[in-house]
C-alpha cells in the first residue's frame, strides 16, 4: 500500500473491485465486548440489513501517508474520518477529523478555551502549519482504543453499538479476510431513520 492514499472496493478512484486482502487478522478479537440482544436488533426497524449491504468504498491511508494529504482528503471529500492501514496493509486505526483538529490546535488552547477568543484570524490561517512534515502515524493518539470494525454480517444495531462504544464516525467492515469498505455515521443514521419503529396502538 505504501505511503499513498488508496481506495477500498468498488471505488471509482482507481482500485475498483480489487478489495484489500487482510491476512492473518482476527477481526473478531475487536468485537468481543459488544453483545447485542436479537430483540433489540429487531426493534430498530431494519433487522435485515447487514454491514456488507451498506458498506461503502472508503479512502484508505497508511500510517506513512503525509498528514497534510490525509487532512486534505478529509476536507476535499467531506469525510468524517479515514481508515488507516499499517505497513503490512492491515487496518490499523480510524483517524477521525476531530483528531486531526486536536493536532492542529495547540494543547494549551485546548486546556484553556478562553485563549481561543484572544487569537486573531491570522493565527487561524497558520494552524495547518502543525501538519507540515508529519505523517498520519504522528496524528494518531498515543493511546488508542481498539479498532472499530464489524463483520460483514453485522446488523445495524451492532454497527451502531460499535460506533457508539468507540465514538467513531466510521466503522470498517471486514469479511473473508478482506476489507469490504466502511460504514459512516451519516449512512447508518440515514438507514435507522428511514423506517422508524411503529408506534404502539
Amino acid at each position, binding site marked *: 500500500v505504501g505511503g499513498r492514499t488508496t481506495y477500498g472496493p468498488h471505488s471509482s478512484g482507481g482500485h475498483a473491485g480489487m478489495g484489500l486482502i487482510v491476512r492473518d487478522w482476527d477481526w473478531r478479537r475487536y468485537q468481543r465486548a459488544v453483545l447485542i440482544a436479537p430483540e433489540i436488533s429487531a426493534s430498530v426497524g431494519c433487522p435485515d440489513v447487514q454491514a456488507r449491504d451498506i458498506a461503502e468504498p472508503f479512502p484508505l491511508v497508511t500510517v506513512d501517508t503525509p498528514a497534510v494529504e490525509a487532512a486534505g482528503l478529509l476536507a476535499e471529500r467531506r469525510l468524517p474520518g479515514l481508515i488507516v492501514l499499517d505497513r503490512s496493509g492491515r487496518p490499523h486505526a480510524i483517524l477521525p477529523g476531530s483528531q486531526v483538529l486536536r493536532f492542529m490546535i495547540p*494543547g494549551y488552547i485546548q486546556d484553556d478555551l478562553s*485563549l481561543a*477568543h484572544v487569537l486573531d484570524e491570522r493565527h487561524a490561517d497558520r494552524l495547518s502549519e502543525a501538519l507540515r512534515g508529519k505523517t498520519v502515524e504522528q496524528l494518531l493518539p498515543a493511546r488508542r482504543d481498539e479498532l472499530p470494525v464489524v463483520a460483514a454480517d453485522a446488523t445495524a444495531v451492532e454497527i451502531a453499538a460499535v460506533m457508539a462504544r468507540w465514538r467513531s464516525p466510521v466503522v470498517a467492515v471486514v469479511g473473508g479476510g478482506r476489507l469490504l469498505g466502511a460504514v459512516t455515521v451519516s449512512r447508518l443514521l440515514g438507514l435507522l431513520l428511514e423506517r422508524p419503529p411503529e408506534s404502539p396502538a
Partner: protein
Amino acid sequence: VTAAVVVVVFVGVYVLIATERVSRVAAALGGAAIVLAVGAVGSNDVFYSRETGIDWNVIFLLFAMMVIVSVLKQTGLFEYLAVWSAKRARGRPYRVMVMLCLITALASTVLPNVAIVLLAAPVTLLVCERLRLRPAPFLIAEALASNIGGTATLIGDPPNLIIGSRGDLSFNDFLVNLGPVVVVVLVAFLVLCRWLFRREYVYDPARVEEVMELTEREAIGDRGLLVRSLIVLFLVIAGFVAGQPLDIDPSIVALFGAGALVLTSRLETRDYLEDVEWETLVFFMGLFVLVGALTKVGVIQDLADFAADATDGRLFYASMLLLWMSAGLSAVVDNIPYVATMAPVVAELTAHAPPDTDPRVLWWALALGADLGGNATAIGASANVVVLGVAKRNGYPIGFWEFTKYGAVVAVVSLAICVPYIWLRYFVLA
C-alpha cells in the same frame, strides 16, 4: 507498644509518600486505618478533638477556596490580565516575565498556587510561541513566583492553613508578619531572574506585533459573571481581614464567599466543583488522623521536649533551626505532611517559650522555611510539579535538574533574606 506501632506506621507512610510507591492518598488513609485499628485513636479523637482530630477548619477553608477558584476561572480574568501585561511590556521578554510573575505572585496570595499556575501556563505558552521564545524559563519563574506569593498569607499555601489553625494565627497576623519579607523576597527574585535567565531574553522585534495583535478583551466571556465574582472576592478578602476582630474563622468567611459565588454565578454543579481537588482534601484528613495519633501517644510531646533541650530555650537558634530544617525537608518531601507533623511540635515549643519573648516567631520560621524551601527542587511544591506536567504535555519538557538549578538558587537567596528579617524584627527591634 502502641507508640512504637504508631511511629513505625507514620515513618512507613512518609516513605511511601516520598517514594511515590503508592498514591499519597492511599498511603495516608492506609496509615490512618492502621492507627485506628490498633486503638491508638478512636472516633472521638478523630472527629471531635481539636488536638488530635481532623482539622475541619483547614479542610473547609481549602474546599471553599477551591470552589471560589473554580468560578473565577470561568471569567477569563487571568487570561485578560496576562495578555494585557504582555502587551504593556511590548513583548520585551524580561518585562513580560516580570509582569507575568507579578500577576502570578499576587494572585497566589489569595488563591491556591496550583490553580494559579494552571491558569498562567497556557497563556504563557501562547505569548512565548508568538515571540518565538523558549517557554521553560517563563514557566519555571511563574512556579517560583507563585510559591513566593503564596507564602504571604494564611490562604496562600496549604501549609499556612495548617499553621494558622494550629497556631491560632489570623489572616492579618500572616499578612503583617510575612507580607513585608515576601515583598523583599519577590523583588530580589525578579532581579535574580534578570541574571538567572539572561540567555533567554533574545527576541525578534518583528515578532512583537504578533503579541500586540492579541485581543485580551475577548478572553472575558461573561462580563456580568466577572463583576459579580470580583465583588464577592473583594468581600471575602475583606472578611478575612475583619475576621479577627469579629472573631469569625477564615473557613466560615470562605464558605460564605463560595456559597455567594455559586448562587450568583448560576453555574452548573460540575463547573463550580471542577477545581475541587478531592484527593488533596482526603489526603489532609488521613494526615490529621496520623499526626493526631502521634500526639495522643505522646511522641509529639517527646519531640518538642527534645527540640527545647537542643536549642536550650534560645528562641533565635530554634527559629533558625526551624527555618533551614523546614526548607531542607520541604525541598525533598511534600511540605504539607511535614508541616502537619511539625505544627503540634511548634505549638508545644511556643507554649513553653521563655517569658518576654514573642514565640510566634517559630510559626513564621516554620512557614517561611516550608513555603520557600519548596522552590528548591522540581518536586518541592505542587505548583512546580504541575508546571512540569503542563510543559511536557505541550511539547516543552522541563527536566528535574533544569528546574532545580534555578529553584535552588532562588530558595537559598530567599531564605538568606529571611534570616536578617527574623533577627531584626523579632529579636533586635522587638
